[in-house]
Structures are given as C-alpha cells and as structure tokens.
C-alpha cells in the first residue's frame, strides 16, 4: 500500500531533478530542456498534490480526519506546494531563472520537512481551536502570499546582478516584482482578515497582538509601504528591490522566527 510519505518523497526527488534540469539548461542553453523542465514541474506538482490528498485521507483512517494544514511539517509541504501554484499562475511572465529559484525554494522546504530531526512528521490530532473551516481559507491565503513574496524576493535579489546571460533586464524584474507584490499583498490581506475573523469565533477577539499576528501586520505594513513609495514616491529600481528583500525578511520572521523565538497563541509548530 502506497502511503503519502512515499509519494511526497518521490515529489521531493523530482524537485531535485528539476533543480538539475535548470542547471543543465543554464549550462547548455537548449530550449528543449526548458520544455522538459516545465513538464517535470507539472508532474512534481501533481504528485505533491496527490501526496497531500492522501495524507488527508489517511488522517481519516486514523480517526482524526482533518486537512493536512495543521502542524509545522504540513505547513512546510503546503508552502512548497503554494510556490509551485504561483509559478504556474504567473508562468507567462516568469523567466527560467525565477522558476529555477522558486523550484529551489520548494525543494529546500520539502527537504527540510522530510529530513530535519526537529520536525514532527506524524499525523497529529487536531486540537479543538484549529477545528474550523476558517483554518483552510486562512492557511491557503497566507501561504499563497508567502509564495508570491518568494517570487518578489527573487526579483529583488536578482536586480543586484548584472543583466546578462540568465538574468533578465532590470525593468522586467521590476515588473514581475510588482506583479508578485500585488498578488502577495492581496493574499496577505485576505490571510490576515480571515485569521481575524477566525480568532473572533475561536477566542472571542479578532485581534490580540499575539506575536505572529503582530509580525504579519508588520509584513503587511512593509509591503503597503513599498506600494506607496512606488506609486506616489516614484521609487523604482534598486530602492524597491532592496525593500522587497526587507519585506521578505519580515515574511521569514513571521513564518519561521515567531515559531522558534517568540511564544504565543500560534506556536502550534513546536
């Protein structure tokens, strides 16, 4: 009987294959490799989706059925999955080097999830506070936002490299960066709002300044600042590239930092 572990394991290996396909493309420059890489990504994503689905089914068999969005391990896998969703949504605009960076991020998350000794991989029962349909909307919107910010961060980082060979021109990076910030900002807003509505039902208060909440607000403010500085201050180029790196640092603190360093209501991850 195939379990979700096996399927997720295979998809991790496929992400690794994808990584090497892109490396090969950058070395050889053959267009055909890109086509293969694209189908490889589709296959990887399909398997990953199946793995997540199977874990869902298995949780029912264990008598604690719930969507696999509830502990740290599951969130890492879902983060990786969301990045691939975003790459597929934005495929028309992306460049090989950005898809490569995104696939590498997916690979890193999958590898960390399945190899780190600090990550509890078993299916765990869902505590009553998490038993809500808001969990699904909240987690999905937040992770799509994080995924969009991964793309934005990639563009911001690449901006500081000379536009040569595999690095797209600055204006293009700027444009993709802006588009991903729009998606990320809208999704993060939805994520924070659904989280607040959920908190209202679960804890009786839509906002409690818990560290994770606060950091998500800080992240939201950073991206709002980027939008304003861009739109009304006319900031472009290095400045916005730098700001999108700051924004992503805030995302990393919101997602990883808070779990490890700051206690709070959201510390489901430890």
């Amino acid at each position, binding site marked *: 009987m195939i379990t979700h572990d096996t399927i997720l394991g295979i998809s991790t290996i496929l992400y690794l294959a994808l990584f090497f396909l892109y490396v090969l493309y950058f070395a050889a420059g053959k267009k055909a490799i890109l086509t293969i890489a694209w189908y490889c990504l589709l296959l990887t994503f399909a398997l990953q989706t199946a793995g997540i689905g199977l874990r869902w089914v298995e949780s029912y068999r264990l008598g604690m059925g719930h969507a696999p969005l509830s502990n740290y391990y599951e969130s890492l896998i879902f983060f990786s999955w969301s990045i691939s969703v975003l790459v597929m949504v934005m495929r028309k605009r992306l460049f090989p080097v950005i898809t490569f960076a995104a696939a590498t991020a997916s690979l890193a998350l999958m590898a960390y999830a399945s190899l780190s000794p600090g990550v509890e991989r078993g299916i765990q029962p869902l505590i009553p506070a998490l*038993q809500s349909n808001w969990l699904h909307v909240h987690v999905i919107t937040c992770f799509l936002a994080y995924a969009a910010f991964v793309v934005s961060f990639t563009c911001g980082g690449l901006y500081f490299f000379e536009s040569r060979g595999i690095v797209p021109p600055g204006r293009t990076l700027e444009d993709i960066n802006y588009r991903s910030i729009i998606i990320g900002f809208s999704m993060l807003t939805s994520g924070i709002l659904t989280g607040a509505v959920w908190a209202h039902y679960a804890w009786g208060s*839509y906002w409690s300044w818990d560290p994770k909440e606060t950091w998500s607000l800080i992240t939201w403010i950073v991206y709002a600042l980027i939008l304003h500085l861009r739109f009304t201050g006319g900031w472009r180029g290095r400045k916005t590239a730098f700001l999108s790196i700051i924004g992503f640092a805030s995302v990393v603190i919101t997602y990883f930092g808070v779990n490890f360093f700051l206690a709070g209501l959201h510390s489901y991850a430890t």
Partner: protein
Amino acid sequence: MTATKNNREKEGAPASRPTSLLRHLASVRLGIVSLSLIGATSILGTVIKQGGTEEEYLSLYSERAYHFIKLFGFDDTYHSPWFYFLLILFTVNLIACTVRRIRTLTAEKGRTARTPADVKGLVAAGSGFTAKAGSLGEVSRRLGASSYRKKELSETTALYEKGSLARYGVVVIHASILAVLLGGLVGILGGDRGFIVLRVGETTQAAVKRERGRPPVPLGFTVRCKDFTISLYPGGQPKEYASDIEILDMAGKVVKTGRIKVNEPLSYNGVRLYQSSYGTSNSYTFRVNGKEVVLAEQEVAKAGRTPFMVVRYAAQVHDFGPGVMVAYMDGEEPKTLWFLRDVERMRTRVIQGSRISLEGITGGYYTGLEVSRDPGVPVVLAGFALMLVGLYINFFTFHRRIYVVSDGAAIHVGGVASRNREGFLEELHKLSKDLA
C-alpha cells in the same frame, strides 16, 4: 503618472497657513512616516515581554532596563499612550488623504470628459491603430460586446470606457481601513471582556476581569452550566469539549439554551460566550463520625468542634494511589495530615477525637468561558469585506479608455489604460486584426 501627480501638487499659488497644514496632514510622506513608526514600534512589543509581573521583568532584564520599560509603557506597548498617538496620527492622515483623493477624482472626471486625448499621437506611440472608415459600426459593436460604455464626445469622436470603477479602488481600500479603526475604537469604548468559571450545575451573573484588581463585570443575566462534556482522541488529547449552557433572565426564567464549543460561541443580548478552557475540580467524600460529608477543594467542614478542609490533591502519593492533604486547627495551630484512599491504615484517621475516613474521590469538570461584548465587531467585519472588494477593484480590474476618431477617409483608434498596459495592448491588437 507619478510625474504628473507630483507636478500637480506643486502647482498653484503659495498656500496660506491653514491649507498648508492641511496639506501636510494629507501628505503621503506623513502617511509613510506614521505607518513606518507603527511598524517599527510594533516589533518592540513582540520582543519585550508584555503584561508580565514585576518579578518576571526583573528576572529577565536589569533594574535600569525595567524602569525604562515601565516609563515608556513597553510592558503594554499596544495600549501605551504613544502607540495610540501614532494610531491617531495615522488615522487623521488617512482621513485627510482620502478626502483629497476624492476631490481630485471628481475634478479629474470633469477634465477627461471635456478634453479628448490626442488620438493620432496614441496611434503613433503604438497604443492604437488606424482602420477603414467603414468599420466604425463594427468597432462600436465589438467594444459594446466586451462591455465598454460609449460616450459621444463630438460629432467625430467617441469615447469607449470600461472599468472606471478601478479608480475608486484606492478610496475604497483606505475607507475600509478607517472602518476597521473605527470598529476598533467602538470596541475599546463600548466593549468589555471577562472570564467565567463554572462547575456543572453552578450559575453566575458576572464575569471576572483578567486584569488584577478590577471589579467583576455584571452580565445582566444569569449563566448556568447544565453539563460539560469532553471527548478524547485515542491518544488521550482532547478532541472536542462543550458546555451546555442555560441563560436565565433576572426573573429566573430560561431565555436561551445552547451548547458552546470551541469555535462555536453562544451570543445573547450582545454578549458572546466562548468555550475557552476546562479543568477538573474534585469532590471528596468523607465519613465523619459515621456521617457522610462531600467536600470540594478548600471547602470547610467540621469534625466535632474542629474545622478541617482539603488543601491538596495528588493523583499518586508515592506508590500508594491518590490522596489528599487535609488541614485542621489544633487549637490555634494549623496542622496537616495525609489521607490515602487505597491504603486501609491511612484511609481512616482520628482528628481531635473525631473519626474521619476518606471514602471516595470523584472528578468533576469545570468549564472556562471567555465573555466578550464588542459592539464594534460588525463595523470591523464590514471594513474587512470592503477592503477585499477595494483590493480587487484596484488591483485586478483596470480603467481603460478607447477613443475613436473618424475623419472621413479612415478611423483612428487610440487607447489608454491605467495599469496592465501589456494586456491592454494585446486587446487593441486583437481588435485591429479583426477589423482589417
């Protein structure tokens, strides 16, 4: 677009004092500064411990640092005066900025209607095309089919417009933030929170405040816990817990009953009750001189003349099973004695001449309910909905204008889009191909 905006701000006669102040209040720069400060100071509250006791702070920080924290209210950052000041500054700025934005929008509207764009210039810039004169009707039909609205600007010029709502997206977003802030304010001024703990069968008419030394909040009705149930996962973790609650009015009549679960609060008269926690509180059955007495923890009973009570419960006393520590008064002097339920020799003891035996220990649950009254919630929720709508129309719809000029021999079609230029050019290109 940015350039024109900046120019517009700088244009005009030197502003008089009050309008200049207003201008500063409405400036995006102030918005950026206040928002940055709110963000930066929010970080402090996540790294400095919030709402701790003096001892907790002194065990974490030096005495000097503690005084500093106290002085600036960093122990309750998000409710400190200066944080409120930043929020107010931000709110005022956002109001001013929104008012100004609405003004420019209405002014702009008049202007675009009056002055048609330089269509030939647009065509030359690649944002348009020229077609046969005969295709005028076809253009009209095509654009109408993709829900453009038509407006005749002159005999020879027509304007087709779509997504003009997109221009109001920003206003909607900003207004929604104001709504959320307003809802928060209503909650602070008109709301109240508290906590109640009930054992099965118990009632209460007030909620306890979490802050030390505050009087309890009267509910205006009576809450009775009829039952508390809990189900566990095979591994022993709680799966679901729920309280069956009865609400009685002041005359003692039951006005509402319901079951409160985590994520499923019960609301009555604007007050919401949330399942928040639970615990066990035992009751102990003693036989005192042949008479049965049931005691809760800390409850006092008499053995002859001597008062005694259970002060501590232990599920395992060494290897001897459950036991309780009983305190009693020996004259003026308090004394304690352990009773073990499962050890014959330790089950029955004599206190001041009275024979007391521990007959049984039964577990009873208590339920912990969070109580909140927050009249601001509907406003906040409306703000949330508005914000999502605003984001959608601002980012995912865009304002397009297509001017069609016919000069007898040919028609010139030129378009402008507020964003997503590439997508718009594709649309124009398709239109020109269909007309060719």
